[in-house]
Every structure is written in C-alpha cells, then in structure tokens.
C-alpha cells in the first residue's frame, strides 16, 4: 500500500518536471537502444520463448509453468522498461529517475526473474549441443561450488550490499554517469548481485533467516538513502548537473533520489521480509508434524 502512495506521490512530483522539460530542452525523452543492453536482453527473451515452446511440445502439461512464464515475462519486461524505455534516458539526466531505474532492476525485476526459476527453460532454449555444454559447465564442481557460495544467504546479502554501497561513492557514481562502459558495468553488477541475493533468500534459505537478511538489507539501503536525502550539499555533481533544466535544483534532485531509495525501495524489502516471516510462522507447527 505505501508503495502505491509513494508511486502516486512520485508521479505527481514528476509531472511538472516532465512537462517543463519538454519545451526547455527541445529533446524528447526517448527510447535508448544500446546494443550492449538490447542484445543480452533479447537473447534472454528469445531463449526463454524457444525453451518454453520446446518444453510445452514435449511435456504437454503447461499447468505449473504458466505462473513461471508470467513471472519471467514480467521480470524481463520491467528490466527492459528500466534499461531501454525513456526512463533510462531520463535517468541519464536526473538522479531521481536514475534511482528509480536502479530500484526497478534490483528490487522488482530481479525478484520476479528469481521467482520464475528460469534456468531450466533457458537451457532448453539453447541448441542441443550448446545445451549439453552448458549443462556440463553448470555441473562442473567449480561452478557448483561458486554458485553455492555465492547464493548462501549471508554472502549474497553482503555482496549485494557492498555493490550498492560501493557504486554510491560519489566519484564512482559520477564515473558511471559520464562513461557508458562503466555505466553498463554498474547496471550489470546491480542486476547480478540482486539475482544472487534474491535467489539465496527465495530458494536457498529458511524463511526466518531470509526475513532477517531482507530486513538487514532494508536497514542499510535506508541508511544510504537517508544520507543522500539529508545531505545539505550536492555530493553527486555530474549526475545532478542537468537537474536545473527540469525544475529541480541539483540538491533537490539528490534529495529526491535518496528518498526513493529510502522509502519506496525500503517498503519493498520490508514487504518481502514480512511475507517471509509470515510463511515462517505459519509453517512452524506443520513442520514439526513432519519432523517428529
């Protein structure tokens, strides 16, 4: 619910900025088709379609996979919405929109894709030989070891946290805004560590610890957001320099971005944590029945 409020609030705040930007800039917010983003995204989508089609032909019982396909599509679409749509273009000009873009990647697309457990279907999308090879690779002890370590709840939480904090060091963040290669790398790290994080919590840990790690992540991202929102001077110079053209001062842009990370993103983590906790409590006596 609070997410909804925040989204509404955001929308209202954004509106004047948008309206203002059009005539002041003479530049329409546009779709960005960066091949470095479009190609991997397209591959992921095509592979999944192929895989799903092949599987459907072979198994003939699509019941369980419907939900997964929906989740995966939602994940990929939001990812595309964040990285390709005018949102990305706006993110290059306004810190606030850049933050929204990041939060969609980390806290919306990543959990959706993780919930869909797409690896099997993606593998089916590959040509037979490549599928074999990929399967072999995934079963290799080293890969398994890495995957297991990476998706243990504690290490994934720390990894994701370090990625978030490290990229928000002002000079690093400004570097990402000014250099497209660094920018792509930034988005890749956010997305990859988010996938590890959500995978670890959704599929690899007990509900209780998962709730705890989500709660911890909520706290530390809120702190980071609060630091940005409460700072009385501009920390991200390159990122916020275009804000004036959109009716915001650079400081306001930074404050708003901090708020986005603090409140709406925090609400997503808190909601997920509460869900995990509820599942933990609800299942506790049934689990006992199984164990005794």
């Amino acid at each position, binding site marked *: 619910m609070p997410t909804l409020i925040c989204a509404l609030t955001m929308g209202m705040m954004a509106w004047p900025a948008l309206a203002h930007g059009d005539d002041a800039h003479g530049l329409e917010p546009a779709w960005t088709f960066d091949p470095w983003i479009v190609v991997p995204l397209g591959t992921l989508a095509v592979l999944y379609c192929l895989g799903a089609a092949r599987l459907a032909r072979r198994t003939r019982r699509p019941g369980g996979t419907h939900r997964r396909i929906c989740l995966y599509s939602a994940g990929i679409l939001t990812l595309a919405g964040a990285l390709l749509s005018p949102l990305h273009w706006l993110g290059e000009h306004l810190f606030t929109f850049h933050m929204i873009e990041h939060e969609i990647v980390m806290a919306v697309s990543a959990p959706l894709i993780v919930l869909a457990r797409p690896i099997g279907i993606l593998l089916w999308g590959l040509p037979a030989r490549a599928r074999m090879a990929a399967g072999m690779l995934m079963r290799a002890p080293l890969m398994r070891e890495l995957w297991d370590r990476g998706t243990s709840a504690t290490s994934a939480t720390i990894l994701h946290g370090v990625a978030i904090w490290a990229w928000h060091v002002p000079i690093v963040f400004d570097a990402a805004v000014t250099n497209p290669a660094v920018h792509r790398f930034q988005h890749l790290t956010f997305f990859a560590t988010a996938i590890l994080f959500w995978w670890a919590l959704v599929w690899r840990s007990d509900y209780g610890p998962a709730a705890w790690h989500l709660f911890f992540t909520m*706290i530390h991202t809120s702190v980071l957001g609060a630091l940005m929102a409460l700072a009385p001077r501009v920390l991200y110079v390159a990122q916020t320099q275009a804000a004036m053209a959109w009716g915001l001062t650079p400081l306001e842009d930074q*404050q708003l971005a*901090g708020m986005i990370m603090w409140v709406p993103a925090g609400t997503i983590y808190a909601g997920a944590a509460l869900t995990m906790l509820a599942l*933990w409590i609800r299942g506790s*006596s049934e689990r006992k029945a199984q164990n005794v």
Partner: protein
Amino acid sequence: MIRSKDDGLRDTALSDKELNRALASTWSAQPGLWGALSTVDHKVIGRRYIATAFVFLALGGVLSLLMRLQLSQPEARFIGPDRYNQIFTMHGSNMMFLFAVPVMQAMAVYLVPLMVGTRNIAFPRLNAFSYWIYVAGGLLLWTAFIVDTGPDVGWFAYVPLSGPQYGVGKRADIWAQMITFTEVSALAIAVEIVVTVFKQRGPGMSLDRIPLFVWSMLVTSFLIILAMPAIMIASTSLILDRLVGTHFFNPAEGGDVLLWQHLFWFFGHPEVYIIFLPAVGMVSTIVATFTRRPVFGYLAMVMALVATGVLAFGLWVHHMFVAGLPRLGESFFTASSMAIAVPAGLQIFCWLATIWAGKPIFKTPFLFVIGFIVIFVIGGLTGVMVASVPFDTQVHDTYFVVAHFHYVLVGGAVFPLLGAIYYWFPKLTGKMMSETLGRWVFGLIFVGFNLTFFPMHILGLQGMPRRIYTYQPEMPWAGLNMFISLSAIVLAAGFLLFFVDAIRSARSGAVASANPWGASTLEWATASPPQPYNFARPPVVGSREPLWAEATALPVAAGLRVDRRELLITGVVEGIPEARESSVGNSIWPLWAALATTLTLVWSIFSPWAVVWGSIPVAVSLIGWFWPKGVLEDES
C-alpha cells in the same frame, strides 16, 4: 533409582511430593537479606522491578501535579522557571526511562518464562544485574533532583541547550548518564527475553503457538536491541562534548545540531512502540480470557506487531518536520507515518471481532481494555493528524501534541498495564484485587484522564506552546488550564485508590486459585504465586490455548534432573527438545558488578579517567561472576 550417564537424580525417580520438595530445595533462595540480594529468581526480580517502576510512576505523578499547580493560573509564582524546567524534564525522563519501558520489561521478566513454560529466564544473573543498574540510575536521577541539580533541558535534551556552552553545571551530564544506566538494563533484559523465547519454550510450542503477549515482548526486545544503541551513542557523544571537548554537536567545528535530533529520534520513535507493543500483547491476552475465545486473526496480529516494529524505524523524521529538513521528502514521511495506522487499525479490528464473537465478561481488567480502545482510537486519530506536515507545523510543540501523546501513551500503555496488573495480580501475589474498588479505580482514572487531557487539544489549537512555566493573563488559556488542573486531581485520586487497592489486596485480599479467570495460557497452569521452580515438570504444548485444549490433565515432559537447576532447551522454530541445560544458581556477584558499574558511570560524570580506573573493579566483579564455583550447575 534410575541414574543416567550424567549421574544426577531425575524427576522420573520421584513421587510428586518428593519431587516438589527436591525441586524447592534446589531452586529456592537463601532466607534473609543475603538471599534477597543474591537471588536470581525471575519472579522475585520481576516483582521487585514492577514495584519499583510503580514507585517511579507515583513520583512522576507528583511532579505532574506540581506542574498543574503552577499552570492553574496565569503568571503564577508557585514554582520558578528553573525548578519548573527541572520538573518537566524529570517528569518526561522519569516516565519514559524509569517507568514506561522498565515496567513493560518487568512484566515480561515475570511473565514470559511462565508463559513459555520454563523454569527461569535465560541469563538469570544478568537479570539481577539489570535490576540493580536500573535502581542505581533511578536513584542517581532523583538524588540529583532533590539537591537541585536535576536535568533541566527537556527529556529530549536538544543540543546546544544541553551542550557544554549553555547547559552549565552537571545537570545535563546526570541526564545523559541516567540514560546509560537505564539503557544498559533495558538492553540486558531484551537479550534475556529474546533468548528465553527462542530457546526455552516448552516442547511443542512452535512459532505459531507462542502466546501473543510473548510475541509482543519478542518484537519489543528486537526494537530495543536495534534502537537503544542510538541513544547510547548520542548520550555518550553528549558527555564527551561536555567533558573532554569533542565537537559532535558544535557547528563551528564541523559538528551538527540536527545530528543529535536524528540520533535521538531514531531511538525516540521506536521508543513509543517499545512502550505500546507490550500493551498490545496485554490487551490481546485479556481480551481472549474475558471473551473465552482465542484472539481473532492470530497470524495477522503477529504480523501487525512486526510491521509496526519495522515501520517504527522509518518514522523518526516526523518529529523534525519544523527543523528545516528537505521539503521534498515531507510527503514520504507523511505517508510512512500515516501507514502505521494500518497495522494499528488491524489490531483494533481483530480485538473488536473477538469481542463481537465472544461473550464478554465485564471484570475490571476488561474494563481497562475497553477504556484503552476508546482512548487509543482518539490518540490514533490525532496521530494521523499530526503526521500531516501542514497540520503539524501548526500544532508541533503545542499542548495539542501533549494531549496526543498522553492519549497514546496513557491510553495505549497505562490503561492496558493497569488492566494487566488487575489480571495478573493473583499470579503475582496469590491474592485477588478488589473488584468493587477496581471499578472505582477505572471510573476515576477514565473520567479524570479524559477531563484532564481532552481540553489540552483545544489549548494546543488555541496556540499554547509546550514547556512553558507560565503564560500571560492576556492569553485566552487561563480558564481551561484551571479546569485541567482540577481534573488532574480526579485522575490522581484514581491512581491513589489503585495503590491503596494494590497494597491492601496484597496483604489481605481473597486468596486466588491457580487459574481464577479460567485463562488459557501456561502461567495459569502453576500455583498462584508459582513455586520457585515454576513447573514441577515442563508442560508440553499442543495448541495455541494449552489450558483450554487440555481440560483435565496437563501434558508434561519428564526426565530432568532435580539435584541441580535444570531446564529444557528447545529448537527455535518448532520447539523440539534439544538438550537439558543447567540454569545458574544464586549469586551476589551481579550486585557487586552493578555497584562497580555504578561507581564508574557516576564518577565519569566528573572525570574521563573514571573509565580507565573504574574498569578494574568492573572487570574483577565480572570475572567473579563468571568464574566456575564447582557447583553442580557448572558441570555438563
């Protein structure tokens, strides 16, 4: 006689009578003063804690009457500004740090081990230590007040008024150090509660069978663990600024005045829920008992508790709406502040649904619950009002806010607490409180409270600011203030009657049976008052309302040793027995440790070197505390 590999006397080898005698000799405290000082029985310490907290409530009440005396007329000269500032600071600090938080934790110290079916709290010596530290903090504050060095900077102690330049003398230091005392004791109890609930629940008490009061204390304990370090850091920085010249809050040297407010309210807002959530647990318990029904929506209630706890950390900024923070963010804070009404509303609706579905029995505890619902709803509504920035910038720091938080805290916490005292008094003392007097107490307090605090809303809307020791005759506030002061007498009479009833009943009340209310939770499965070992054998839990589910005989587990203090350790999630564990015996060392800590903390108000030299007796007493004495409890 069956002897297992660890070679102790087991309860399986004894008849019930022998078992009780053997357990009594193992678990009892020594008689006399030494025994009283060295006991680690959670029930003895819990009762002491509750009684002490009520003494501080009475003292704080006297302070509020003094304030009402001074404010009854414009430009009154009963109390000068210096003393008045001390009085309102003392009132707030005393009620928050010496009454509200400790009394809730004290109820938990007494009740949680009984409700989860164990024999003592986890870390019983730490429990004794925390009580002594708490008393020391209270004595420090009140002694300072009596000798006219009571803190005079408000319970929030905003810098720079409390800083080295404007807060002269040792007044602010005493406030800050009192914080340290009470926080140490609160944190210690929080740890004990968390571990007791996680590891010492009766076998079979899985997470979804934990009584709601225990859930509320668990969430509260986590709030304490996460929120109180902020105020510890803040008060320590304040003392450092004052004592050794650091510059945390000095804007001339790169410090910041608002840093104090952020730290204070990061603690201060969760503090409200630290006081309120236990009350939610109490209300749930009382509602269930007096409607003869389990509380409607158990999981929803638990999630509401947790959600309130989580939201509590996102709300601190709404105490700073007028401090000059980024205006862009205000809507976010308004949204999150208002969002807290959702879990609160959920709880209210669940209680109403329970009452609706059951047959309410209108005993005194239940009357207090009804009073709570009425008053808390009003407090909640004004809370939603002050969450709105435009409204808040008008009423912030006026009597409207005074009225609001008294509705929330007195209505939301003191009413349930008084109900809880009436409800658990038979368990605490073995005697019933008077039902007739109880109705009078409720009536006087309910009427007196509303007459006292409702007009304050109006005063606030008329523009009367808080924390003023007097006001000018030309302001339109005199009539209402006189009315409020007179109403306060009614309220005070209600509390006086409550104390009379409590003391009289404890001496000569009707003897209570084990379960006089026909309640469902485990504390009523044992005698009133319980034996030192709580339960002869640990109860086995098969449902959320164990005493209603098993009408004839209580399922129990057997096999614990009786020649040493032994209790049962169970798994966190399902409550599966994992081990037998010894529980430490009585010890005087917690008292020595508390005295050494007190010496260090009080001394450090005057000299930074106290921390160095004082740590030596503290370390010695802690080593004495933990060093094995070769008793049965030390073995494995």
